[in-house]
């Protein structure tokens, strides 16, 4: 099982035993209330230079309010896992927070591409599937997992994967190294004050990301009681002991959507995508992030209760959610 080939991409390697120790010592199994506001959550758990992972995006259930707070607090030099991302990467890069991106899907729009083309941020190319798999490896407490993708491509060459001949049947497989992010940011539909959380609908990797990460910030549409959680345990996606902070953030995915809850805000999205350069994106960010103090102000700014009601009504599909 010799290594036949190694990708040249930089990888944040961590010893699985060091990660285990962190999970033992720094995450509590006590039923402690973890509710705090976004300022405190980001101040406490996001540091310059951190590796950050957020969950499902593509304008769907993205943890936008927390990401805006990260920009507001001017966190620097972040390394982000951009699996299936549209708004998120662009916002964080536009806010000057990012130095490296593990690319699954780098998002859309010129400002982000401009930052890459100009060398402002460095990319390490993977794929959505292998980034998801790296989170699964991180969540399984193993140093790597095998895959039959990446092989033969330049994506492989620029990734940090390796090719080996496996010892059971002699197949060539790619091995992808585990990711254990410093921080996970996940927007959920419901959770209790301890962090037992429900995610409705299809998903990228909410459980894997929460399990693998050293610090986990949940933002949630609403808090429900632990009794309600216990009445339907099959709905719990993330157990409380993986979670460090719970931030109540109704409409926290705006301008994106939370399926079954509210539609994305297509008018606002046009404003976002109208930014065709980093400079123009900077103006958007000044307006919607730096000029205001937090998510509550933001919601007022984008239309308040009335607008939210409208977005809720636009979401006519309810089946299968809640």
């Amino acid at each position, binding site marked *: 099982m010799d290594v036949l080939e190694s990708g040249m991409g930089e990888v944040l390697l961590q010893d699985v035993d060091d990660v285990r120790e962190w999970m033992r010592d720094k995450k509590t199994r006590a039923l402690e209330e973890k509710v705090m506001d976004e300022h405190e959550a980001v101040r406490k758990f996001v540091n310059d230079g951190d590796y950050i992972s957020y969950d499902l995006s593509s304008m769907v259930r993205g943890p936008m309010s927390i990401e805006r707070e990260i920009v507001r607090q001017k966190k620097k030099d972040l390394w982000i896992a951009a699996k299936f991302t549209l708004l998120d990467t662009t916002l964080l890069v536009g806010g000057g927070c990012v130095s490296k991106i593990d690319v699954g899907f780098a998002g859309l729009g010129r400002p982000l591409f401009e930052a890459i*083309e100009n060398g402002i941020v460095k990319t390490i190319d993977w794929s959505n599937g292998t980034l998801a798999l790296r989170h699964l490896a991180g969540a399984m407490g193993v140093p790597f997992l095998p895959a039959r993708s990446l092989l033969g491509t330049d994506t492989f060459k620029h990734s940090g994967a390796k090719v080996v001949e496996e010892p059971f049947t002699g197949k060539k497989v790619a091995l992808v190294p585990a990711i254990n992010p410093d921080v996970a940011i996940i927007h959920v539909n419901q959770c209790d004050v301890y962090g037992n959380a429900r995610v409705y609908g299809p998903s990228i990797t909410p459980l894997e990301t929460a399990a693998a990460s050293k610090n986990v910030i949940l933002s949630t549409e609403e808090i429900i009681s632990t009794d309600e959680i216990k009445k339907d345990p099959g709905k719990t996606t993330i157990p409380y002991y993986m979670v460090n902070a719970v931030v109540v953030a109704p409409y926290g995915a705006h301008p994106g959507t939370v399926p079954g809850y509210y539609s994305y805000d297509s008018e606002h999205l046009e404003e976002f995508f109208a930014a065709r350069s980093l400079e123009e994106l900077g103006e958007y960010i000044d307006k919607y992030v730096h000029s205001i103090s937090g998510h509550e102000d933001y919601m007022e700014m984008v239309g308040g209760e009335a607008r939210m009601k409208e977005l809720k009504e636009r979401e006519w599909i309810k089946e299968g959610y809640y």
Partner: protein
Amino acid sequence: MSKTYTDVEQMICLSSRLIEDNRTVFVGYGMPQIAAILAQKLYSPNICQVYEYGAIGPEVATPFKRNMMADARNSYRSFSWMSMNRMMAQAQMGYIDYGFLGAAQIDKYGNINSTIIGKDYEKPKKRFTGSGGGNEVASLCWKTIVLMQHEKRRFLERVDFITSPGYLDGPGARENAGLPRDSGPHRVVSSKALFDFDEETKVMRLIGLCPGVTKEDVLENMEFEPVVADELEQLGPPTEDELKILREEIDPDRVVIGRVD
């Protein structure tokens, strides 16, 4: 005679006819989403669309919204909602018959580039989205169908960056690299023509022409020379039915399909 439909409509309609019914189809971001909806409404009602974000078998609600993937409409009335690792696993297991992708560039072996233009990875001339789920789709599904605008700068001898694998550098190369046996690019649908891949050389092969397009027209707009089939199929234009559904049901604002000038 001016055309009564757009290039995008042509590509979408043509590709929607290529999906066999009763098959699983891994649908990529963008045009393929619309083509899959059209296919299901018109030609293959019992395809089972699957998406990297975890939806299995949705009856995608229309109208389709630009840039949207994974929202409630895209996931509507699925058989099951899973997650990315599970979907990729199922493709890896051989459960997914077709992959359906768009791309920025393709080369003669069907290798796809959606990462960068230029040779300097650190400072690319142009950066695109990267693989997304494309690498998995092209690696793991049995037959990949690629949708491409037909332009010389997009049909290359060799792409600047192989984001997702076609036949790499020819016969046997996929298997040698460890990719699943008997998988690979199946069809390329461009705005001018239809291609498959020559069985012996694994080079892209011209097999059909869009209405009003000549063989020369196709070849002039490609950097490499494809194999050309002995007989070229004359491909039909978008039918009235197709256009009606596209324009009235699927994309009434024409944000993806565009408008005839």
